[in-house]
């Protein structure tokens, strides 16, 4: 299907990349449909593009590429809605923010995006009582070197 994106122009996305967000995203509650577009093969970064609003693109990252021990519980209700379990694990992505220099990029570890690919459904999950930061600096070293894992 063809998708309009201010960032990418008019692009072809496959149905398999489309995710329904039945509860929208906090701040964007009406945005219920996104496509997950890769940045580069083998890159932990991706783009979450709204299929409804060409201007709405989030940069997301696979948190485990940087923080191997990132860990949180998902409550049973959400797990049931997304139909996720040990046998059908979710994919976790976190929204990234860059205001100026890319070296200052922060990642929202407190509200991960939990994706159930077999249901093509996702939710931004606000972790309860967490010490994870919603503005965790991603790069502790110069870009180009592998960053060490850590909170």
């Amino acid at each position, binding site marked *: 299907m063809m998708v309009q994106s201010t*960032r990418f122009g008019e692009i072809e996305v496959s149905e398999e990349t489309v995710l329904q967000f039945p*509860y929208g*995203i*906090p*701040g*964007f509650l009406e945005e219920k449909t996104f496509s997950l577009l890769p*940045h*580069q093969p*083998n*890159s*932990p*970064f991706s*783009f979450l593009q709204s299929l409804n609003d060409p*201007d*709405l*693109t*989030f*940069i997301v990252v*696979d948190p*485990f*590429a*940087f923080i*191997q021990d990132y860990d949180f519980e998902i409550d049973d*209700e959400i797990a049931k*809605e997304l139909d996720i379990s040990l046998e059908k694990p979710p994919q976790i992505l976190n*929204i*990234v*923010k*860059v*205001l100026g*220099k*890319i070296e200052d990029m922060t990642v*929202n570890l*407190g*509200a991960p995006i939990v994706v159930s690919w077999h249901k093509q459904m996702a939710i*931004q999950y*606000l972790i309860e009582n967490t010490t994870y930061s*919603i*503005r965790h600096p991603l790069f502790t070293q110069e*870009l*180009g070197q*592998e960053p060490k*894992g850590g909170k």
Partner: protein
Amino acid sequence: MLALTRKVGESIVIGGNIVVTIVDIKGDNVRLGIDAAKEIKIYRGEIYNEIVAENKLAVASMDLHEMDKLKGISKNK
């Protein structure tokens, strides 16, 4: 905003389906009980508002030239 005064044990019904009950009051703290369908997500206001603000800031405005700097980073698996 609608403001109502309630005593411990009293409740408020919202939209016919959401019930907020005053469970306890201790000094400055009011303990609320909320009955709602499981599809209705309930959050502490300040936490939710922080996420909204952060999401709005995060909407990608970074130019693609900057994104090129990410090319060297590969998945650490």
